[in-house]
């Protein structure tokens, strides 16, 4: 086990409220740590790029940009598209914010193979395993991703990687994104602000050309550099609900086919079903009895 990880566990210790400070790019999502919470930093560094395994192992304090750069050298990438320079791997996974290319990549938690985290007792725990397939024991990784660091503080992670697409093209236009979604086999992203549609096509160059022709017939026909910047907060909807977003969300960019709506204002907290809320309490009580990990943050307000 990396000594950096053991030093991180020592720093977290076993007593007193504590939170990890990453790049502070999404610091207030789900609430800010309560007053008096000690801030620590997770160790940084890419530990192993394994192109033939299609995995990467990195310490949680590594920036997403650095991990992407290390993988680009071997023609691969990860399913995290955070572009803010300081955003860390651990922070992105604690939020569990999937890439806008989720139609092609799937949700980010599906890419997490192993997580090493420091428990509330200050002990390093390994969740999951290093291989691309693993069902041994409970799937703690999926529970931890999106937990806002309330069940454990991430120290090291192994992610599944994938080949960089051979060709990549953004198209934009006023066409109906829902009709386009049904017409295309696998767009990588399909964004819509209520008026304009942006469509990302990736893959074999000839396939991208063919799919571009389909997009053009649907009025999404202008090649562009990329989509507009995405507002900082997210709403979660069923994909088909995006057709008639009747709530006053202000300026938005929606992920068609997925249901995520990027909005400027922090959304109101979602009321959990009481039975589900009890399970949340039971998990936190058992994994962090004194409530010392990220007090003030609530995964239900992500």
């Amino acid at each position, binding site marked *: 086990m990396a000594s950096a990880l053991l030093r991180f566990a020592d720093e977290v210790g076993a007593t007193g409220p504590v939170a990890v400070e990453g790049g502070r790019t999404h610091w207030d999502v789900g609430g800010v740590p309560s007053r008096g919470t000690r801030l620590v930093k997770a160790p940084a560094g890419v530990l192993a790029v*394994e192109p033939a395994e299609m995995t990467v192992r990195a310490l949680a304090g590594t920036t997403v940009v650095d991990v992407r750069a290390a993988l680009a050298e071997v023609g691969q990438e990860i399913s995290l598209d955070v572009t803010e320079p300081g955003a860390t791997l651990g922070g992105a996974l604690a939020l569990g914010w999937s890439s806008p290319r989720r139609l092609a990549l799937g*949700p980010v938690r599906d890419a997490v193979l192993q997580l090493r985290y420091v428990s509330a007792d200050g002990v390093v*725990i390994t969740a999951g395993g290093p291989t691309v397939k693993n069902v041994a024991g409970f799937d703690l990784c999926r529970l931890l991703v999106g937990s806002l660091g309330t069940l454990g503080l991430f120290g090291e992670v192994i992610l599944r990687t994938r080949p960089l697409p051979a060709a990549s093209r953004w198209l934009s236009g006023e066409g109906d994104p829902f009709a386009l979604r049904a017409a295309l*086999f696998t767009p990588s992203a399909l964004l819509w602000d209520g008026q304009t549609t942006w469509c990302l096509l990736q893959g074999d160059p000839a396939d991208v050309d063919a799919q571009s022709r389909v997009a053009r017939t649907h009025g999404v026909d202008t090649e562009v550099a990329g989509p507009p910047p995405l507002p900082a907060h997210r709403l*979660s909807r069923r994909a088909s609900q995006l057709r008639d977003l009747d709530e006053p969300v202000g300026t938005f960019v929606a992920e068609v086919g997925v249901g995520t709506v990027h909005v400027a204002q922090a959304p109101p907290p979602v009321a959990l079903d009481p039975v589900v809320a009890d399970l949340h309490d039971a998990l936190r009580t058992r994994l962090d009895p004194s409530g010392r990990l990220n007090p003030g943050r609530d995964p239900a307000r992500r």
Partner: protein
Amino acid sequence: MTVPPSDSSLVADLRSALGDALVHTDRLELALYGRDASLIRGEVAAVCFPTDTAGVQACVRIARSHGRAFVPRGSGTGLAGGAVPQGRPVMIVTTRMDRLLEVDVEDRIAWVEPGIINLDLSRRLRPMGFHFAPDPSSQQSCSVGGNVANNSGGPHCLASGVTSAHVLALEVVLPSGEVTVLGGVDADPAGLDLRGIFVGSEGTLGIVTKAAVRITANPPDVRTLLADFVSPGDAAAAVSAIIAAGVVPAAIEMMDQRITQAVEEYVHAGYPTDAGAVLLVEVDGLPDGVAAQADVVSRVCLEHSARSVRVAADEVERLLLWKGRKTAFGAIARIKPNYYLHDTVVPRTRLLEVITKIYEIAERYDLIIMNVFHAGDGNLHPLIVFDAREPGVLERVHDAGGEIVRVSLAAGGVLSGEHGIGLEKRPYMRWQFTDADLDAQARVRDAFDPDGLSNPGKVLPEGSRCGDIAALSAHARDQLIGEGVWV
């Protein structure tokens, strides 16, 4: 058949809730439902066949009120003893809850009941242009509820991921008897991913009564290749080289010579019986990408000394090749009556090293070991075939299995890729995880099931937590098979 006095009030309560017809206690059925596709047996008090969520809830509540454990069971195709009863529990069988409830093509979601058969679901989705991606070899008989419990895989999980990647929401009866929905059909359901922890929990966190699964568009094009190698080492090297070349096929399956011969005799698919190993590779997607990827696969195999690469000419040939792969387990019954199967995963780049060691282990223990496995993701299925009537063979099989696990873990691998831990692999959990790791898992189990009533004695080794055994009566405790006993 008379119900023993210790079970009579439990059975009476179940009968009054479900009706006599849905609660079975005759001797044959109790014996039948005392086992799954593993070699382990257990004892069950009653077998219940609820037809809806309320029926499942009633079974759980009644079991609870009698301090009795309950075990969820789908089709019983599990290979690790996950559905084998421990402590004379109530068996809750979901086979009568097998409806496809709703298909939403726009959102690409199907709501199903847990007893629906995996392949039936895909067949019914086919006219709409979709399928359910997880495709275990048992897909003709395994249920989607069982797939959820085991986080099942299959050949096509190389590109599309195992069951967890295809489950959006679960209606469950919790061990408390409460009904709720975990996850959701929106993009990112609020709160912790309770759906994610439930998938693969092998029935220890409750019972699924409905599932919203992701349905996957059928690919516009597909190509299936059969590459024939003299040496298994060359085949293994070709697997890594395909991935390193930037191609992620839909599936890469490897079969060694013994299994290829057995399969060919069984299905006559035209597999080369003199090959040292064959690779079955499938690429799918849009047509140009498929053609380009098939070219790379073909070239890489030939560069790694494949004698030939055959491309299935049509759908009939393609299905025949797959039939060979998927009936491999049936084919081996012609060699020896029993088999014991491991499911370890190793890094792809160490496949050759590990399979070489596995053949050495076979030789040392004077056993026949065959390999038919998901080479693309390093998921081995070394199959020890034997005749249980032969004196002393079980010990050899068990010891050889342990060594296979050890060499896999030493190579940086894991215990199970898709079959789960159940009862059978439980003693090995300590070889992969530390006490602190297991304690964390046990706390999660406790949060869902503080009394340890839902499928007790599974997944976590004894001593990970205290609730497991405490919930069982003294009589039931005596029934628990000892650690390390697997037949």
